[in-house]
């Protein structure tokens, strides 16, 4: 089961001492059932606010957020969340951590069924044999895998990922991207991924939304037409490089910078081709390029 997500003219501002700080401005978005949407944009543009609105942890000032056509009025058990910080509970084993949502959400499963469900997911992400370890005994990537398992153990219809791979090293991150594709094949959910990594958005999503600087609007929605079965090498194929260049330009527009002429298509030699991609990621993450406000 999965549900479509829609945001209809959503406007939101935080109340600060210096007055209201608008973060979302008349944002309208549609995420079809079972789709994978990545959201990229300048730092502090309101991406995380979007996740909290979809999760029902906050209500928008104006506009409506809908899951499956019904307005979101508060938290609901059909949502799963994972963050940059895996927030595993140190006093529980990995298996107990993954089972946590099943203790809150009534699923009609008995104890052994819940345990089987958690074990099945842990095996799927390659954590077989680590069920009885404490989180502190695992590496950062393994903890994040466990956190992903926890976010989908109760078969949520909507999965919200707020930069879950942001703190991992490049190779571990790529491993987890592959895991994410596997989870998507095995489970059914509508996914929103917040990220700062353009390669990540191209590799994982069906469409990538570029947010403008705060207050955020959907500046551009880019269809990622790379097909469902993607390998890491596909990131260096001409179409992917084209998409990355397009996203990079959009980010630069969002940051309020001069738009350069499109970069020439890189020669398809491995090791040379990946240069511009690195540049893209570095530009998107460099805090000095943030627009002052």
């Amino acid at each position, binding site marked *: 089961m999965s549900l479509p997500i829609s945001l209809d003219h959503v406007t939101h501002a935080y109340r600060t001492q210096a007055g209201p700080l608008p973060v979302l401005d008349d944002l309208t978005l549609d995420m079809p059932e079972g789709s994978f949407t990545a959201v990229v944009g300048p730092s502090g543009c309101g991406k995380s606010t979007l996740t909290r609105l979809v999760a029902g*942890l906050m209500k928008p000032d104006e506009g409506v957020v809908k899951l499956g056509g019904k307005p979101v009025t*508060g938290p609901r058990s059909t949502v799963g969340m994972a963050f940059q910080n895996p927030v595993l509970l140190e006093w529980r084993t990995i298996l107990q951590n993954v089972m946590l949502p099943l203790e*809150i959400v009534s699923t009609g499963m008995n104890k052994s069924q819940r345990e089987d469900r958690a074990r099945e997911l842990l095996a799927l992400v390659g954590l077989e044999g680590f069920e009885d370890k*404490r989180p502190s005994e695992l590496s950062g990537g393994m903890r994040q895998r466990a956190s992903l398992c926890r976010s989908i153990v109760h078969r949520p219809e909507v999965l919200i990922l707020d930069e879950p791979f942001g703190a991992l090293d490049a190779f571990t991150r790529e491993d987890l991207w592959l895991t994410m594709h596997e989870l998507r094949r095995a489970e059914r959910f509508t996914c929103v991924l917040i990220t700062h990594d353009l390669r990540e958005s191209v590799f994982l999503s069906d469409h990538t939304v570029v947010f403008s600087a705060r207050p955020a609007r959907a500046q551009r929605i880019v269809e990622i037409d790379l097909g469902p079965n993607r390998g890491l090498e596909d990131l260096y194929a001409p179409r992917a490089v084209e998409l990355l260049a397009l996203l990079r330009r959009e980010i630069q527009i969002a940051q309020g910078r001069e738009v350069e002429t499109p970069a020439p298509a890189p020669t398809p030699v491995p090791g040379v081709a990946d240069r511009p991609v690195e540049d893209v990621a570095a530009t998107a993450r460099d805090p000095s390029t943030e627009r002052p406000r």
Partner: protein
Amino acid sequence: MTRTLRQIAVPVGAMVVFLLLWELLVWANGWPNFVMASPSDLPPAYARYWELFLTGGWQTLWRTVVGLLIAVVFGTLLGMVMGFSRLAREALYPLLVGFNAIPKATVVPIFALLFVGQHDFNTVMLAFIISFFPIAVSVSIGLSTLEPEYRDILRALGASQATIFWKIALPKTLPEFFGALKVAVTLAFIGTNLMEIVSPHGRGLGALFDSGRTNADYPLMFAVLIALAVLGIALFYVVVALEKIFAGWAERAPN
């Protein structure tokens, strides 16, 4: 086997070294008993008054433990209120700090007058009053510094505040709580003895100390101090054992 042996041998060895140094210090300075007793004076004192030590020790112990239990309940509740409500935190912190800064010896006569003759009650109260502060502060800090993501993983599923408290906030605060409890244990002993020594017609080891003082029986006074130290150490290790059971996960494996 060798590890448990080491865990016992090392602290015991340290104590023996300490007693030897003490003996040596008194001997080297040629101090008579009425200036400072030496460890070798203590066994005769224990032998002479062992019955008083047993009854006094028991009275001191149970009143300290009861005071400590009240401090745990009250301190935890107060810490919860302060941890969850910013308003309560802002309102209560100056009051608590001010109250804690008052020398507790000055509270003894107030209590003694308020509850005349209620010696057990007064003693328990003082042990409680002196020891709840670190518990309240640590619980409140533990709860107020809980990262919002911890809350959100359950809140996003529609969990109630009570569920979030029991499943996440409380266990996460346990290491801080036990740290504070270790401080509170020794403080509670100070509270109990303060009341026992300062208030007239007292009971417990404090009263025994006081009678040693009035009779200029210095070995007895030092024997009481050592007995108090032993009780304090015993209670401290009870807390350590509880910590191992309930918050053992916080301990990292030794490298």
